[in-house]
């Protein structure tokens, strides 16, 4: 009990002399309360609650929520002094409220209203797709290729990039941050995604180099109006690639909160992938590149699909594995007219 506790205890216990049994009971009550007031204990408490209710990532969820309320990104990065300092009643109430969302299986990223991608803090709002850590590796790959200059992207000025299905803007905005000369055209068919990308671009002061367009790639509308500056150097996309029959097995966090349009790739998960590949030759400069994130079953499917479409002049030049060792990323290159 700190000095504050002692004062409270004096208040609680009333005039001196009436001690004994009541004191012991009051003390134990007080110490339970007191324990709940510090972040470490609070995290343990909510971890227990989440575990009992079968919420996945019980410890991580409660740590992120408590850290967020205390103004830190992770519990680990919270000032160590704060770990044992009691929370204010308002903070306690916020934790309580956010944890109740988690009990309804809301993804932590939506609860906090923000998440990090490649070192950028991005606003997250349902139902816009939450970027996954694998996609950070897709961006890394693009940046590596750019650094090696293998494909002569944007010999004059930075590369011009088209992103299909920008969602929260994660890929486009991190590319813009790392490639200060680059320009991005970001398209999405969902209004919510468009406005979230806009907002994130403004928060990061990148709005001058990004052109955000409401556009549906599956529609038969012409693409050319998207590219007033002519063909681009690069197409990047994390298209919906889940096989339709797998949609039912997704966790409630995904199924009930994220937009299925950003996930469902049709029967073989290829619907949007083939759309992008079909349109890409008209959008890309010669020897321009397409970088895609896909399902581990897709590299083979894409490869044989491309062989059946020699008219596209596209070839699969590289497949890269993600951090779990699954073939996840494709590099397709245009090699003809």
């Amino acid at each position, binding site marked *: 009990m700190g000095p504050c506790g002692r004062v409270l205890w004096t208040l609680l216990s009333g005039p001196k002399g009436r001690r004994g049994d009541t004191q012991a009971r009051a003390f134990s009550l007080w110490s339970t309360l007191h324990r709940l007031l510090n972040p470490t204990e609070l995290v343990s408490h909510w971890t227990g609650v989440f575990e009992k209710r079968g919420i996945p*990532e019980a410890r991580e969820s409660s740590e992120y929520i408590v850290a967020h309320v205390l103004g830190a990104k992770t519990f680990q*990065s919270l000032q160590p002094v704060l770990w044992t300092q009691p929370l204010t009643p308002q903070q306690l109430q916020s934790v309580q409220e956010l944890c109740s969302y988690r009990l309804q299986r809301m993804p932590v990223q939506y609860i906090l209203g923000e998440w990090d991608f490649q*070192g950028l803090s991005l606003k997250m709002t349902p139902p816009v797709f939450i970027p996954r850590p694998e996609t950070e590796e897709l961006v890394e790959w693009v940046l590596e290729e750019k650094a090696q200059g293998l494909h002569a992207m944007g010999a004059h000025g930075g590369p011009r990039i088209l992103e299909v299905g920008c969602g929260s803007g994660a890929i486009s905005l991190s590319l813009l941050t790392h490639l200060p000369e680059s320009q991005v055209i970001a398209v999405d068919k969902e209004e919510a995604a468009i406005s979230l990308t806009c907002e994130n671009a403004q928060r990061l002061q990148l709005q001058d180099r990004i052109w955000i367009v409401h556009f549906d790639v599956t529609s038969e509308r012409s693409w050319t109006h998207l590219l007033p500056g002519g063909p681009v150097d690069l197409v990047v996309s994390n298209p919906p690639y889940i096989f339709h029959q797998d949609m039912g097995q997704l966790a409630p966090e995904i199924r009930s909160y994220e937009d299925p349009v950003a*996930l469902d790739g049709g029967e073989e998960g290829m619907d949007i992938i083939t759309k992008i590949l079909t349109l890409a030759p008209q959008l890309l400069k010669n020897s321009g590149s397409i970088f895609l994130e896909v399902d581990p079953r897709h590299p083979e499917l894409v490869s044989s699909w491309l062989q059946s479409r020699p008219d596209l002049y596209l070839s699969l030049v590289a497949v890269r594995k993600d951090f779990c060792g*699954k073939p996840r990323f494709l590099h397709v290159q245009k090699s003809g007219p």
Partner: protein
Amino acid sequence: MNRHLCIWLFRHPPLNAYPRCHIYLHSHQFKQLHLKTRLWLLGQNRNHILHCFLNNNWSRRCCHQDTRMIWKHKAFQKYMEDLSKEYQTLGRCLQDVPVNEADRKCMTRRHAELSPLAAIYQEIQDAEQAIKELESMCKSLNEQDEKQLQELALEERHNIYQKINTLYSELFQSLLPKEKYDKNDVILEVTSGRTTGGDICQQFTREIFDMYQNYSCYKHWKFELLNYTPADYGGLHHAAARISGENVYKHLKYEGGIHRVQRIPEVGLSSRMQRIHTGTMSVIVLPQPDEVDVKVDPRDLRIDTFRAKGAGGQHVNTTDSAVRLVHIPTGLVVECQQERSQLKNKEIALRVLRARLYQQIIERDKCQQQSARKLQVGTRAQSERIRTYNFTQDRVTDHRIAYEVRGIKEFLCGEKYLDQLIQRLLQSADEEAIVELLDENLKSAK
């Protein structure tokens, strides 16, 4: 160091005579020698600095820190004279005598090396000359008549002496070998001891970690927390931080080792028994390498993340961004969960791993360099007990230089008290560096 130095001198009695005659020989033969030999001699000569220094160093101790006396040591004076002669000769050679390009390069480099030394030495000589003049003037003064003038002269002389002292310590600094990693940033890790009295060790670990955090603030360094694993009763199991700023490694490199605490515990399980407990914690200080210093082959890494299984990608939404890196060839393990982005955590972990690998490289270097060295500050493995914090006696003792300071609270503030001890350690290390080089040189001369 002093004990060591005295023993060393005792072991090598002919030392006082040795450098002098050698230098004498060199300077006499200098002009007739073939250039190649001459360059070889220049290299040799450099080591004589250290011979002279040893003498000086030793005299300083005998003269009770009167720095003026050290520099008056004949061997040193002689050495500096030779050095400035060499400098002048080189200067003339470079101007007049035609030499080939490679030799010219060698000579220019040596000339540049000597130039600051010669400049300082010249200044010292001028100042000494001024003192002589003052003294002769004082003698000629009539004591009664010119009392005021005499006082002025004395004051002037005092000022010049002070200036000479500063100049000599400057000279000392430029003669010392430069440490390779001094300018680097560091990663500082603290780990509580696991033996008796766990909670006392953990509390002590927190106090020490706080001390270094405050010291970083005191020195205007940047302190970034990398990892923090707390224990019960406000203790700390393990923590790591990256500290960056000016000459961070130079100041913190001697903090690595086992720190011991002796106290009557205030909280925790061991506080029930009111007796003095002993606990330990260890500090590791790793110089932070540049990207180019340590290359890590990605194939040597095993990266553990939350998703070893499952479909991955869009099929799952996990928030656990913790990363664990295992460097297979060395078995080093680094963990990080400071950031929400897994990629950022991986970057941080890689940075820490690189620092640890770098440390191994440095240790290997040092082992090769100093096979014969015994008990010095700098070479101590980071597993030795270096300091004791005795709370009951309110005293901190550094075992390497037998340094004691009272006022443990002030010391743990990580400000002036700690800084003073660190300065003393640096000074001792400088002295040791000279002994070491001297030792080596003597061995090679035999």
